[in-house]
């Protein structure tokens, strides 16, 4: 069985500085609503704080059978026995992360075809590509668009998650343009009703995609 055989199609990314509630409660709501893939990404935190949060999220995600990935810090992922790591563009080489932990699910953030192919070649399990649409997280960078997403998805065999400006509506478009799944930050992090936001996204990507 491949590591990605049971990969959920919705990745929810933490954004603690913008959340209406403490991160553990938020994670609980995400999981209760059916979110099964969480990425802990809190670049402003030091390793001690990140480790604390990661430990808590590990406990919550395990209770729900959800997958937990840690952004960048493979040591934190290792220490809390997370399911894997999301390697940022300027993160550790994929081969190095794989050598640290053979069974990890390793995702790589990419921004173009060359980066996507290189990541696949070096053994990434799946890719996160973006930002596809306009997003408040990256106000000064032009979105890469659905065409670019499609081009990437056609060039690699591993699953591609679309990120950046993902809503229930755009999530659907991403899947129609070759994405395996979508990754969201603001849409769930900022939501007044976290559970409902997760459910709406899950529904949007659950129906079989009509290939035109």
């Amino acid at each position, binding site marked *: 069985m491949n590591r990605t055989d049971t990969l959920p199609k919705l990745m929810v990314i933490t954004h603690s500085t913008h959340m209406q509630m403490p991160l553990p409660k938020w994670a609980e709501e995400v999981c209760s609503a059916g979110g099964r893939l969480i990425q802990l990404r809190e670049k402003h935190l*030091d*390793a*001690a*704080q990140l*480790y604390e949060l990661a430990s808590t999220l590990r406990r919550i995600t395990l209770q729900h059978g959800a997958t937990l990935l840690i952004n*960048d*810090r*493979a*040591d*934190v992922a*290792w*220490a*809390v026995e997370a399911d894997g790591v999301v390697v*940022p563009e*300027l*993160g*550790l*080489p994929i081969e*190095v992360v794989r*050598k*640290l932990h053979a069974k990890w699910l390793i995702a790589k953030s990419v921004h173009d075809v060359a980066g996507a192919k290189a990541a696949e070649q070096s053994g990434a399990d799946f890719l996160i590509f973006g930002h596809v649409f306009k997003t408040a997280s990256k106000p000064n960078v032009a979105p890469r668009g659905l065409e670019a997403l499609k081009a990437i998805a056609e060039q690699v065999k591993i699953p591609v998650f679309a990120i950046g400006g993902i809503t229930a509506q755009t999530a659907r478009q991403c899947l129609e343009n070759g994405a395996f799944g979508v990754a969201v930050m603001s849409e769930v992090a900022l939501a007044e009703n976290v559970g409902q936001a997760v459910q709406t996204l899950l529904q949007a990507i659950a129906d079989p995609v009509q290939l035109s």
Partner: protein
Amino acid sequence: MHQEISGLCVITDTTTQKRYTHLQLAELAMRGGASIIQLRDKHLSAKELFALAVAMRTLTMSFNRLFIVNDRADIARAADADGVHLGQTDLPIPAARKILGKGKIIGATASTLEEALAAEQQGADYIGFGHIFPTSSKEKPTPARGVAALQEVVNAVKIPVMAIGGITLENAASVLETGVQSLAVISAVSTADSPQVASAKLAALIKTYTELHKVNRKDS
């Protein structure tokens, strides 16, 4: 089992000075006699820090010196460094031990006796205690600890103690009188006219005191 922590530890730093790269500073320090090189750079990406750590591993190996990575246990392991140094805001010691195993060195920063004892109890291999004197290397929210506090720690813990913070050639002797096994410096080497000469002088001073303390221990 790994080599014991002792002698001069030079933390390569490229924020207090721009003349040398991390690797150049390390090489000069080791030529002078530094026993331990610690790589610390909070500004680099993981990709850059890893690449640098790999190069630093090769360099320190050629001098047969210890190489410690600050904060990132994953990079310490991936680059096959001798260990990791953890500050109070870094990973907990047991978490880093899980990653590095027993064969690697884990150092822990302490600025109080309680922190030092806790770190020893959690399995640290050495204590980095400080800062001893006022220092300009980092923003320090806490006051300098002084030599008396260092003495307390040296007396209280069984693992080696490395003194850090504002140590210069002028005040090093007062620090070494406590029986501390190791001195860590940043600016005293990185901003010296000759980092190599500064390292040599500090290393020689540490050696003198280490031998003196050995003799004293035998006598008592």
